[in-house]
């Protein structure tokens, strides 16, 4: 029963996220709105960690798994890029590495200049 209630709490927040996402004029996905809602409810103490702990830990510890179907679905898009798919894959990988390193370097520099984070 406890887990069922937790599922209901998290799913209701997702539902609210979907509703709000259609109302606001910016393209913010339901998942991000639900994240912000949940964070506000946690910070204000309306929802306690205990109310969602088990369900959240289940979702978080298996998070990568939920991306399996999204990746498999990608095969249907390969047809539309037949002639340029290699370029797209290369650009996708190379720019990810560039962004990762540029971001990491920026954080390192800021921490060095401001003298640590703690």
């Amino acid at each position, binding site marked *: 029963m406890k887990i069922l209630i937790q599922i209901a709490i*998290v799913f209701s*927040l*997702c539902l609210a996220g*979907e509703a709000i996402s259609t109302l606001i004029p*910016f*393209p*913010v996905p339901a*998942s*991000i709105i*639900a*994240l*912000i809602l*949940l964070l506000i409810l946690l*910070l204000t103490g309306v929802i306690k*960690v205990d109310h*969602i*702990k088990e369900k*959240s830990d289940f*979702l*978080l*510890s298996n*998070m*990568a*798994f*939920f*991306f*399996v*179907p999204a*990746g*498999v679905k*990608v*095969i*249907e*898009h390969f047809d*539309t890029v037949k002639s*340029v798919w290699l*370029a*797209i*894959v*290369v*650009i*996708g*990988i190379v*720019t*990810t*590495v560039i*962004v*990762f*390193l*540029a*971001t*990491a370097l*920026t*954080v*390192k520099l*800021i*921490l060095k200049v*401001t003298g640590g*984070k*703690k």
Partner: protein
Amino acid sequence: MKEVVFSSPFFGISISIFAFAIGTVINKKTKIALLNPLLISYVIIIAFMVIFDIPLEWYNNGGDFINLFLTPATAVLALTIYRQRDLIKKNFITITIATFVGSLTSIISVVALCKLFALSDTLTYSLIPKSITTPMAIAVSSSLGGIQSITVLTVIITGISGNILAPLLIKLFKVDDPLVQGVALGTSSHAIGTSKAVELGEIQGAVSSVSLTFTGIITVVLSLFVTYFI
């Protein structure tokens, strides 16, 4: 008979779980980052579908069920942010600046490489929002005049490459600080990268979640100016 079995939602769900479990075991046994559980899952599932000639729609009957969990799985990242709220508060400005630099780097490097490969403007527009989470990326792509399916494809390629390459980049460039790892993962490869950050540790997961949200919003805003410098 074949359709009854393979078009049942239980098929898509079971094969996804088994493939991911096999991927996880191989990854743990070999400790090779490139043998990533997600990548192994794709190879197993796609190979199975090709060999037994199973259409994607049949797989999707179960796949869509798993897909549904992406929204709650992203939403509960709020819990990791909440648990690390003091660290986030202290580094709020650092994260904001770094995600801005990351978003800008992403757009500039995509445009530059698209020029290098002589891709059309339409393709370039489709690739520009590649570092942000799918629904936001689709919105940016269509407002620029890109092609949705190509955007989805590159968003997934980006996430997977971040998920796979992050451990290598961390080792190679000695990125030891969990804060730095988190910002870099969330900014470069959105939610799929964040799932790796969560595996690395709670600080990384929390910081990555915040970064992916910031990067999404910053990229949406920056994309408004993109047409000026292409």
